[in-house]
């Protein structure tokens, strides 16, 4: 459980300090896996299958999210010729 917490915080911090969008996507994955780990640990602790089921959901969602995210990043790279997320601030109000 502590490992899951550490993993989540690591993912969060790297998300906040990284500017490269690929790495941001990676940290999102780390956070998702941290959450998944927490679910599995909790399900084995209380001997409930729900956590396992939830992890399956998280896996499939992560796959979908990565494909959409990568496609967006590709498009942004075409537009901006860079992977810097701060460059993509043209839509600010």
């Amino acid at each position, binding site marked *: 459980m502590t490992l899951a917490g550490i993993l989540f915080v690591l993912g*969060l911090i790297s*998300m*906040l300090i990284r*500017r490269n969008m690929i790495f*941001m996507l990676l940290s999102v994955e780390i956070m998702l896996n941290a959450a998944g780990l927490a679910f599995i640990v909790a399900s084995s602790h209380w001997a409930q299958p729900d956590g396992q089921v939830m992890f399956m959901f998280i896996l499939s969602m992560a796959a979908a999210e990565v494909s959409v995210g990568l496609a967006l990043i590709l498009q942004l790279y075409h537009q901006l010729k860079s992977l810097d*997320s*701060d460059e*993509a*601030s*043209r*839509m*600010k*109000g």
Partner: protein
Amino acid sequence: MLFLIPALPFFSALVLILAGRSLNKAAVSVIACGSMGIAAAITLVLGLPFLQSGEHIIVQHLWTWMQAGSFTAGIDLRLDALSLAFVFVITFVGFLIHVYSTGYMAEDADYSRFFACMNLFVGAMLLLVLADNLLLLYFGWEGVGLCSYLLIGFWYKDPANGYAARKAFIVTRVGDTAMAIALFMLFQYTGTLQIQQILDQAPQLWAAGNSTIVLIAFLLLGGAVGKSAQLPLQTWLPDAMAGPTPVSALIHAATMVTAGVYLIARTHVLFELAPAAQTGVAVIGAVTLLLAGCSALVQTDIKRVLAYSTISQIGYMFLALGVGAWSAAIFHFVTHAFFKALLFMGAGAVIVAMHHEQDMFKMGGLRKQLPAVFWVFLIGSASLSAIPFITSGFYSKDQIVWLAWSSVHGHTFYWIAAITGAFLTAMYTFRMVFLTFYGPKASHHTPHAPGNSMMIPLYILALCSTLAGFVELPHTMGHVTLFSDWLQHILPAVQLQQESTALEWTSQLLAAGLTFLGIYIAWVWVIERPDGMLRFSQMPFMRWLRKLWFSGWAFDALYDEMLVHPFVRTARMNRRDMIDRIYTTLARITEWLHNMLARTQSGLLRWYIMGVVLGAVVILSVLIWRVYV
């Protein structure tokens, strides 16, 4: 069948509004002119039984428009001899103007919008004259006002045109308000707006000279004065020249300005019960015809001369209505429609030939270059200035001049005004002809002759301007009274205070003499001794007078000082009032909030994540705090 007459132009307008952009010019012309032509043909078919007797009446109930309590207003049409005279002129002259417009507007980009408005204009006017109740009449009345706004401001890219259009709309609105009040009062006293019922009931309800009926008649007169551009609401008409020339022809000849004449003729029973109002009509007519005649003398724009001449000629019609010579007024309306449409379209042909030059002093010598236009224009001018025997204008105007004195309501003052007006008319008309067509060639433009679509309507109208007069000849010359006999079932015949052939001869000879004198003076003024006239007009008093007349007796400046400026000043004073402030403060607060929120939307992704994280932390801490504490 009757409903088709107004329905066809309306339908064509609808088609052109909806599908005008996708149609080519030929299709637009066919739809616009075709609908008018069919309407004119239907008018002729329906009008045939009327030729045998003027008593014939066609009424058609289409549907009930609205019903509230005892009040019903239907879409009811009614065709009698009076409306037939108007419908005939509107459809027939309107058709010719449409045909002419296909030539005049051929180069214009907004071809279909132009014809849509023209058709709508004609349709509204037809509804006005065919209406069986005053509410429907008012509907057409307002429709005409709207279309005049659309067409005067047709070339809306020039702000001056938009200003002229607004002016026409607002000034006539003053009269419309008076007329609306008159309708309310009529409904209050008679309980109906059906014209025939009102006319039947009026003599039982009110004694002659009763103050209520006088008030109603004056209010109706106010409406008529606004639409017909009579004193004191005449200022919009000269500015209405901003529109394309066929529009001016339509406004002046067939629609719009004659609506006032129709209204008074239609409600003549009310005016007979109100002698004061009827005197008012005659006085307004007499004064207007003189003022407008003087103004027309000094104008330089060919269309403005014609505009003032229209005001002056409608003054004649009002004078005739005022002295109870109802059919003479309608007769003058018919002949005026022919020759004024002819003159406007002739002037339009000249303007096109001169590459849209309207200043007469920059024309001159066009007689050789545009012979066909010159001859038809000359016929129109002769008719307008009432050259004896050969022109229709002579027979109609002469009748009014004579009746202005000899009718029971007549007066020497009216007769003097009318005959002076005839003199002025001849003078300004032929000043215009001489300036435009005679003299040295003043322009370096090479005029190009107008095409057939423009010339054929002119020929037809020239024929009408000459022949239309022969249906009504004075006592002294054959005594033909086809037209007034035909109308006498609707409009009572004029009552004469005395009949004297000798006096009538004198009046006619005097009028004819003054006409020729006017033409001679115009000849001297423009052709023979222009330098002498120039010196004469440079005298201080004459310059002052010229300036006054040129500005149309400075009515514009007067109204600006009296109404427009005080209004603008009050509006400016009220610019920041209490209620306004509440709303501006509200708007400011919203704007401030918006700015605060907009600043958070920086576009930096990591800031957003930070926000999400902070939000999650706050929510989680609150939850934990609630559970454990």
